[in-house]
């Protein structure tokens, strides 16, 4: 009985020593295989020594080998599960990052398109503003021709007032893209009232 106690104490001490030295050598967390193999070897060794009453040493060795192998298998399984979880997490992270990049790119393109559209609208508005006074002046001239000198005095201030509303710089009659501006832009009843370009040709 005393021999058994000594033997078990020896195995425990050896297990602890192996454990500590291994940790010291690696300097980091144990792998699940190593940890479970060590635990299995310790338990198996102890159990083998207890079970084999005729030869404690042989029993301990056999138990240790079997326990170690079993522990390694369990540890490997744990390690595989952990690696799979890490792989899934990494894949999710990459997918989330890609989605975030895609959304950012889409937002950037939309903002750019909106800015271009606003610029085109501004150009169309200026072109229309330029045309409006010209048409008004034309109308005034027609009225002058029809009504004579009295109408000139009556309509001149109106024409002058209209002329002052024109923008200072030259209005673009052609959009940057090489298309003509739509003078019915914003008119819902016109065939292509929502297009900043002129579309109606026939």
């Amino acid at each position: 009985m005393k021999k058994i106690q000594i033997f078990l104490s020896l195995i425990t001490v050896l297990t602890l020593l192996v454990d500590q030295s291994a940790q010291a050598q690696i300097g980091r967390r144990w792998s699940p295989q190593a940890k479970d193999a060590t635990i299995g070897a310790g338990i198996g060794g102890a159990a083998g020594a207890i079970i084999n009453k005729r030869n404690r040493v042989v029993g301990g060795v056999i138990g240790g080998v079997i326990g170690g192998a079993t522990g390694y298998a369990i540890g490997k399984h744990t390690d595989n599960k952990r690696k799979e979880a890490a792989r899934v997490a990494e894949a999710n992270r990459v997918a989330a990052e890609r989605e975030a990049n895609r959304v950012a790119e889409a937002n950037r393109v939309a903002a750019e398109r909106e800015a271009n559209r606003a610029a085109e609208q501004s150009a169309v508005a200026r072109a229309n503003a330029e045309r409006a006074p010209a048409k008004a002046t034309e109308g005034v001239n027609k009225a002058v021709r029809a009504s004579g000198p009295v109408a000139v005095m009556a309509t001149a201030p109106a024409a002058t007032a209209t002329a002052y509303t024109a923008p200072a710089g030259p209005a673009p009659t052609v959009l940057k893209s090489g298309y003509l501006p739509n003078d019915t832009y914003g008119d819902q009843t016109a065939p292509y009232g929502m297009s900043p370009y002129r579309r109606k040709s026939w």
Partner: protein
Amino acid sequence: MTIMKSVISALLVIGMASACSKPSEAVNVQELNQQFIGAWNNKDADKINALLADDVHFLQGNAHYKGKSEVADKWVKSTLSSLSDLKTNVVSSAADSQTAYEAGTFSVDVAPAAANEPRGFGEGNFILLWKKGADMTWKLSYAQLEDLPVQVKN
């Protein structure tokens, strides 16, 4: 022998009757459209309007005009002055005794809308559908245009 003679006589009568009734001929849709396009190029509004059916439909972009007077006013009258050298390229065409159509692409020169604006060049897709009316004359029943943006003509 008597039966044989009567059968032959009956066959002859049927044959002559079928030869006399001519099958109704399909209209020459190319000629109809040439008249129509020619009227546009000659700026002949009366000729164009005469070719429109009373219940004509005209679709262009988000506009849908119904009836001869609305189409004549909002399409023909408002477009005729700014258009010249209208050409069509027919992609699909068919005709029978009651309906005929031509569809394809068109190109046209666009007069400047303002004095300081350059001339334009327009292209697009079209379909012109003709139907024979009760008075046996062919009229434009449906027209649909899809215009592309008007480019500056160099």
